C-alpha cells in the first residue's frame, strides 16, 4: 500500500532545492519512526516518489510525494508533520493501492501571482491582453551563459485577473513546463522594466491532469 501526500513549500522553504526537499522529508520520516519501504540491494535507500521540481523562490501549496508503507494516512500525516521544518507540511494524505503516476499525469498548474506595485500590474495587464489575443508569444530563457527563445503561447492555458495586483496563471507544468516567473519577467522586460529585482510573488496553488481534473480529486 502507498500513502500519497500533498504538501506545502512556503516561506523560506521555497529556497530549498528539490534534492534537499527530498532529503528533508526522508529525514523527517526517519525521525518520525514511520516504517516505509527501502530499496533492496547494495545500498538500500528510502523509496519515495516526488512530482517534478519546483523552481527556487516559487512557493507552493500543492506538491506531492508518496511512500510505500502499511501505515494509515491519518497517522502518517500526524507523525510526519511533527517532524517537518517550517514551511513544509503535509496538508492531505490518502492510502492508495497503486502508483498514482502524479509526475506523469500532471499537465497544468495554477500560479497565484501578486505584483508588488500597480505600475507593474498595469504593464502585465497590457501584455496579458496581447498574449491572449495572439497565437504566438515567445519568452527568452536565460541560463548562466546561454539564452534561448521559446514559443510558449500553447503553454498558457488561462489567465484570470483576481484584483488590482493579482492574477491566476494556468500554465503547462510537468514535462512541458512554463515557469510563471519567466513569463511575467518577459512581460515586464518587453516594456523596459529592469527585472533584476523581483517585482512579484508567486504561489503555485493547484495542479491538474490532462483532462483538467484537479490532482486533489485523488484524495476524495
Amino acid at each position, binding site marked *: 500500500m502507498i500513502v500519497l501526500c500533498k504538501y506545502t513549500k512556503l*516561506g*523560506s*522553504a521555497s*529556497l*530549498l*532545492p528539490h*534534492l*534537499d526537499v527530498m*532529503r*528533508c522529508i*526522508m*529525514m*523527517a*520520516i*526517519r*525521525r518520525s*519512526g514511520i516504517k516505509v519501504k*527501502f530499496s533492496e540491494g*547494495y*545500498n*538500500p535507500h*528510502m523509496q519515495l516518489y516526488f512530482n517534478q521540481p519546483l523552481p*527556487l*523562490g516559487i512557493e507552493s501549496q500543492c506538491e506531492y510525494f508518496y511512500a510505500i508503507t502499511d501505515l494509515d494516512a491519518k497517522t502518517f500525516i500526524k507523525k510526519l508533520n511533527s*517532524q*517537518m*521544518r*517550517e*514551511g513544509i507540511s503535509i496538508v492531505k494524505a490518502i492510502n492508495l493501492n497503486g502508483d498514482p503516476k502524479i509526475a506523469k499525469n500532471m499537465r497544468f498548474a495554477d500560479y497565484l501571482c501578486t505584483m508588488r506595485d500597480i505600475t507593474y500590474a498595469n504593464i502585465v495587464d497590457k501584455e496579458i491582453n496581447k498574449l491572449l489575443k495572439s497565437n504566438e508569444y515567445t519568452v527568452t530563457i536565460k541560463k548562466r551563459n546561454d539564452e534561448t527563445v521559446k514559443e510558449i503561447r500553447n503553454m498558457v492555458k488561462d489567465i484570470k485577473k483576481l484584483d488590482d495586483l493579482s492574477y491566476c496563471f494556468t500554465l503547462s507544468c510537468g514535462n512541458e513546463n512554463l515557469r510563471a516567473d519567466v513569463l511575467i519577467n518577459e512581460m515586464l522586460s518587453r516594456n523596459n522594466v529592469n527585472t*533584476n*529585482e*523581483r517585482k512579484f510573488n508567486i504561489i503555485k496553488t493547484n495542479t491538474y491532469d490532462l483532462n483538467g481534473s484537479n490532482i486533489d480529486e485523488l484524495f476524495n
Partner: protein
Amino acid sequence: MKQRIADILLKVDKPARYCGGEFNTPEMKRNAKLNFLMCFPDVYEVAHSNLGIKILYYMLNARLDTKCETCYAPWHDLAEQLKQNSIDLFSLETQTPIKEFDVIGFSMQYEMSYTNVLYMLELGNIPLFRNERNESHPIIVAGGPCVINPSPLVDFIDVFSIGDGEDAINQLAETVVYCKDNNFSRRKTLEEISKINGMYVPNVNTTARRAVVDNLDTAFYPTKIQIPNVEAVHNRAVLEIFRGCTRGCRFCQAGMIYRPVRERKVETLKKYAKELIINNGFEEISLSSLSTCDYPNLKELLRAIKPVCDEYNVNVSLPSTRIDSFESEYVSKARLSSLTFAPEAGTQRMRDVINKNVTEEDLFRSLKYAFERGYSSVKLYFMIGLPTETDEDIDGIIQLAKKIKQFYKANATSKKPLSLSISTSTFVPKPFTPFQWEAQISISETERKQFYLKDALRPLGIKYSYHDSRISRIEACLARGDEKLGKVIYKAYKNGCVFDSWNDFFDYQKWVDAFLSENLTIDEYASKIDTNKTLPWDNIEAGVSKEFLLLEREKAYKGILTDDCRNGCRNCGINASFKSSFNANCKGGAGS
C-alpha cells in the same frame, strides 16, 4: 524572512545556505540579555560539519538569559549582492545584522580561514582592527585549535578562548550579562573576561592557560542538531566519544593540545547515540574522536546501539581508524567498498621517527581481514616532508603500494579489481608539538617528491592525489606566526585573498606580495626555529611542557618510540600543570 534579503537570495547560488529555518533550531528568545553570534569562517556546508560550534550554540541557547544565532561565510555572489545593496551581513536565524550582537564568536579550525574572518567582519560593517572598535561594536571572540597560537590574530580579535569551550564560554556569557547589567564599559568588560580561565585578552592579560573540562561525561552535549538546508560535507550525526589522544604522534597538534584523554562513559554514550538517531534522522552516526578504536568499551557501545541503528536504518561510521585497530565487523555492512588508513609514512624508520606506533604487519593484518570480507577499495594517507625524510622513505610509499596490490590478488574475495588511492599532504610544523621547531620543506622540494610519486604510482594504476604545496607553505607560516603576521593577513585580505583553503581561490602570489610589503619573507616563517628562541605561543600554557616536547624531538631523531600513555604516564606535563584533570582521567592519576 525579510523581503529585501529574500530578494537578494534569489540572485545567488544555493540560497538555502542563507535562509535559516533549519529543523531543530532552538526558539530564539526575544528579550535575551546576551545576544551571541556563533560564526564559522567557511561556507554553510563546511560549518555544519563542525561539532564545536554546535556544542556551544545549543549550550548558549539553553541559558535562560542568552540567545545564540549563527552566521557562516557567504559565498562570493552573496558578498557581492550585500555590497551592491548596502545590506550588512546578517544572522541566519533572525536576519539580524551581525554588528548588532553583543558578542561574536569565531571558530578557527584551520589557518587558511583567517582572511575569511576579516571578510565576514567587513561584510558586517565591523572595524577589522581591535583598536578601532568602540562601545557600539560587538566583542569579537575566537576559539578552536588554531588560537592555541593567538599571535597572528591579535590585531583583530578582542578575546581568545583557548582550549575547551564548554565552561569557558558559559562563564563568558555569565560575565558579559553581568557587565551589561552593571553598564560596564567595553574595557571593563574585557578586563572581567580576562579573569576567566582560558581567556586571553590582548592588552589586558599577557598570558593564558588552556581551559580544560576535567569531566567530559558531565559536560554539555547536544543531541538535537540543526538539520542543514543543503547537504553538509559530513552529513551525519556525530557522537564525540572522547576528547584527546594518548598515542603521541609527534607531528600531531590535536594529539598534544587536547590532552589529557577524557572519555565519556559508555552508558552516557548509549543514551546520546539513541537520542542523536531519534532526534535527527541522519542515515549515519559517526563515533568521533582522534582515535576511535582506542575507546576501551567500543565493542560494548557498538553492540548496545545496534538495535536502534537497525530500527532506524542507520549506519555506524568509525573515523580515524588506525591500521592496528580495525573493527569492521561493526561498521556499516551496506557499503563494503572503501577503507581508509593513515600509515603517514612509507618506511618503518620514518613511522618510528613520528611515533606512529604501527607496523607494516599491523596494516596487512587489517587488510587481510578486510579483503577476505569483500573490501575492494583502499585509501592510504601519507605525509611528505617529515623531519629526517629521505628519498628512501618516499620509495617506501611506492613499495607499500606495490605490496598491497599483490596482497589483494592473493587474499581478495571480491571479483572487482583493487581500487587503491594514495594521498599525500605536506608536513606542516605546528605549535605545541615535538616538531614545532622543524622546518617545512621548500615548495620545489615538495613538488619534486609529489612528481616522483606521481610518476611511479600512476603507471601502476594507483590513484594519486596531493595537497597544494603552496597552501601548505602559507599554513606553516600562519600556524607558527607571530604578531607581525597580523598586517600580512590584512594585506593579503585587501589583495583579495578569501576562501584560501579552497584551491580554486587560493592565490599564492598575493600572499607573497603581502609578506613582501611588510618586509617579511615566507621562507623565514617556514624555516627551522632555534630551540632556545622564545616562541610566539610561549605565553600560552597548553599543558604539555617544553621539556617533554624537546625530549620527544630528540627521541624522534633517534627513532625511539614513546609508548601510548594509556599504558602509563609519559610525563608530558599535564600531570604537573593540570593535576585535577590528570587525576580524573589518566593512568597513574588518582582516578585510574
